[in-house]
């Protein structure tokens, strides 16, 4: 049963990644669609990260005691000012493990 779960999940994931790369799939992308899609990465990634940061315990937690939030703010500032992915991730994860 576990193997069935693993393989069927793999199929779902692979199809979602491959389907729209298939040239035989009749799909003409309008200029408007492409513009709309250019917002997909920031929107989706934000939707995944926001609950981890703002409600790590399942309820809204905007306080100085929320290490996730503090470190996320630090990461945002680092990313904005340094524009360096490695520095941003390593420093903010390091800080998180110190204060968590």
């Amino acid at each position: 049963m576990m193997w069935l779960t693993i393989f069927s999940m793999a199929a779902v994931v692979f199809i979602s990644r491959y389907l729209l790369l298939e040239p035989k799939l009749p799909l003409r992308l309008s200029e408007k669609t492409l513009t709309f899609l250019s917002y997909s990465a920031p929107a989706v990634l934000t939707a995944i990260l926001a609950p981890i940061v703002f409600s790590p315990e399942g309820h809204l937690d905007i306080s100085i005691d929320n290490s996730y939030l503090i470190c996320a703010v630090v990461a945002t500032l680092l990313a904005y000012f340094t524009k360096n992915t490695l520095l941003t991730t390593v420093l903010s994860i390091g800080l998180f493990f110190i204060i968590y």
Partner: protein
Amino acid sequence: MESTTKSSAYLKGMLAVMPLTIAVIPWGVLAGSLALEVGLTALQSQAMSAIIFAGSAQLVALGMIKAGIGIGSILITTLLITSRHLLYAMTMRSQISPMSLKWRLSLGFLLTDELFAIAQQSGSEASSRHKLDPWYALGGGLTFYLGWNLATFLGIVAGQSIDNLEELGLDFAIAATFIALVVPTVKKPSILVCVLVSLVLAVICAVFEIQVGLLIASISGMCAGMAYAKLTNEGEKKAAVLTEHVSEFETQDHSQSHEKEHTKNEEKR
């Protein structure tokens, strides 16, 4: 000469994805150790990362397996989480679909948030006539795949010796990585609007335990960003670039010329 450009593009991809690969280590460790704890065998735990290769889907599914939830619900949830790849693939369709089947299958399998991010980055650096170098994407994708699987392996090994590994807050690594990916993309006010709408809705949905929160939040964010750009006429220049892109896509039919042309571009750079 040609092989040098290929390997230099491959190397460039490797370097571009390196920071993200390092950042994904805690997350991979979590995926490996949690799988063991949920009751998967070591082989199954590794297979999840090797075959599925989708961090957030794996972690959510493990939580559901632990809670005794059936395969049907697990697959529907997987579909929801992974649906963003449809958006990524659609965005990269004009670049990847003219390539050969071999390239499409490999890059399709390797198409993660991280690969998408570095592919878009390479686009912003290049001119408006940007084409994705398949070797660059392969270098990035494979490096990330190896990193993810090594980290999972580490988690499987460590999970057997350390208790409560999932309470160490390894999930912050996910947040940190995604912050590092999102912040540099916020180059226009409309993207900021998109991010803020998505953020607020995602948190609201999470607090009220709305299952499809991820979809609601991201689609709303995208619509809000687009609407803002339209209201402020922000998108005019961008639209022109994209039109050029589309017409390129329509006239382009085989990967051979595509590859050669790209090689030329690479040399110019």
